């Protein structure tokens, strides 16, 4: 072998090694923040996560103990309200995009949904503040739920559309050829086939809004006490974390860490659920 060829070979090997190292480094940089966040949350928050945290109301400054039960329940209520707005509109809109509608109208709808997906979440808070809070003269759980629901709509719409388009046309044809009406075909065959994908989309949207703080600042506002009236301001975990984190008290800082840990764990659980669902889907379809 000529030495020139040998040199070239060495140079090629070097380049190849360089590129694989670069990609490895990037991969590490992607994973590292996640590990850091978890580590940091565990170190700072694990101490404050206890039974009281899930059962007690917040205590005044200086009083030891206390929890965030009102914020946890409030967050769940807000998610439920948001789902009530976001899921039906998002899913039905997705079905419309995939099954009905004209090509041109659909392209426009899709574009709008994509733009809405990119709108900063605080904007939704401001919009709902202007439309609901000012008009009805008060912050409320309804307003918070509406803001979260509005964020969910474009997310669910797009994922629903995509998974429905993935349903092979053969199933629609088979159903229609049995003399089954179009809407029954869509509900009983198409949506049923795509159900796991649709649920996955919904869960991902919930995970996304579960941690939203900004849209709640001007709408749900937060509440240090129990609130069972949805037309009144309501507590939410992200809001509580925000309030506690910017306070000057060490006690509250600890509580904020604990809240953040619980929130992240919750979102983590949803993601694991999504994983299980999607893996199952892949398993049955092949």
């Amino acid at each position, binding site marked *: 072998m000529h030495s020139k060829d040998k040199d070239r070979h060495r140079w090629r090997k070097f380049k190849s090694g360089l590129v694989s190292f670069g990609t490895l480094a990037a991969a590490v940089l992607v994973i590292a923040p996640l590990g850091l966040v978890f580590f940091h949350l565990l170190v700072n928050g694990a101490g404050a996560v206890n039974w009281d945290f899930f059962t007690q109301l917040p205590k005044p400054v200086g009083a030891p103990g206390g929890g965030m039960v009102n914020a946890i329940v409030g967050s769940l209520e807000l998610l439920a309200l948001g789902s009530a707005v976001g899921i039906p509109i998002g899913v039905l809109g997705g079905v419309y995009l995939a099954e009905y509608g004209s090509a041109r109208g659909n392209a426009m709808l899709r574009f709008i949904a994509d733009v809405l997906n990119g709108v900063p979440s605080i904007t939704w808070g401001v919009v709902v503040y202007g439309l609901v809070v000012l008009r009805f003269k008060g912050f409320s759980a309804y307003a918070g739920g509406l803001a979260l629901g509005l964020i969910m709509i474009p997310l669910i719409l797009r994922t629903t559309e995509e998974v429905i388009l993935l349903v092979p046309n053969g199933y629609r044809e088979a159903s229609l050829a049995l*003399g089954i009406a179009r809407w029954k075909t869509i509900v009983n065959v198409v949506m049923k086939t795509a159900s796991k994908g649709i649920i996955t989309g919904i869960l991902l949207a919930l995970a996304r809004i579960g941690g939203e703080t900004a849209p709640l600042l001007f709408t749900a506002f937060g509440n240090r006490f129990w609130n069972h009236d949805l037309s009144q301001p309501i507590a939410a975990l992200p809001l509580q974390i925000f309030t506690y984190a910017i306070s000057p008290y060490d006690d509250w800082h600890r509580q904020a860490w604990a809240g953040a840990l619980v929130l992240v764990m919750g979102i983590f659980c949803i993601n694991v659920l999504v994983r299980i669902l999607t893996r199952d889907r892949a398993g049955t*379809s092949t």
Partner: protein
Amino acid sequence: MINLIMAAPDPIVLETDDRTPESALDSDEVRLTFEVHNLSIWYGDKRAIDSVTLNVPSNAVTSIIGPSGCGKSTFLRSLNRMHELVPGTRVDGSVLLLGENLYAPDVDPAIVRRRVGMVFQKSNPFPTMTIGENVTIGLKLNGVRDRKFLNERLEKSLRMAALWDEVKDDLHKAGTSLSGGQQQRLCIARALAVEPEVILMDEPCSALDPIATAKIEELIHELKKNYTIVIVTHNMQQAGRVSDYTAFFYLGRLIEFGPTSKIFSNPSDKQTEDYITGRFG
């Protein structure tokens, strides 16, 4: 020019015109399921079917052959208005099903499809449903609730599709757990469950191995006692084996139609001859 062609055993008079092939089996001799008259179909500006006139005899198998893109699939789908699923279709002419025009303005395509069932190229049992649910879904979604009736129809349909003995203990398993040939027979059972009068088959065996194909063909032979069957196939030997009548389509036109034995031993048209003997293009 008009040719008179005699078909054994009872003579069926067939008229062929070289310019506009109009084939009509004499209705005095044979009961007709479909009477297609001067049917043209457009997809947008493209004319997929061009002035086809054809009579489909009852309780017989009629096969449709022709090269890809000749309109045979579109023609098949026009018999239960499935081609309308493609937006922008337009139909001219008439299709009579036992004397009733399928394209009359007050006819609901869903009702047409209940009377004219269809089996597709790719077996497509609903993946979220069990074997049993796959068969009864057509009845259930058309409003049948009676359990006993559903179970009876389930067994009857599976028996007719020659699948009952193979799946009777697995009715609660997923329809997609069956083999390819069994899935296709499940699809036939599903179509039979709504008790259609006609069964259309669009290349039902093209994805199956020879054994599974033979089972479907045997099934077709059994089914024609009770049903009229129209089958599109790329496999000329299959057309020869299963069908009583054969129609040859080319470029959207019906070139020749007649008894299968006649088409495959002595076609009247040169284009038919060239196609079936493998001299095309």
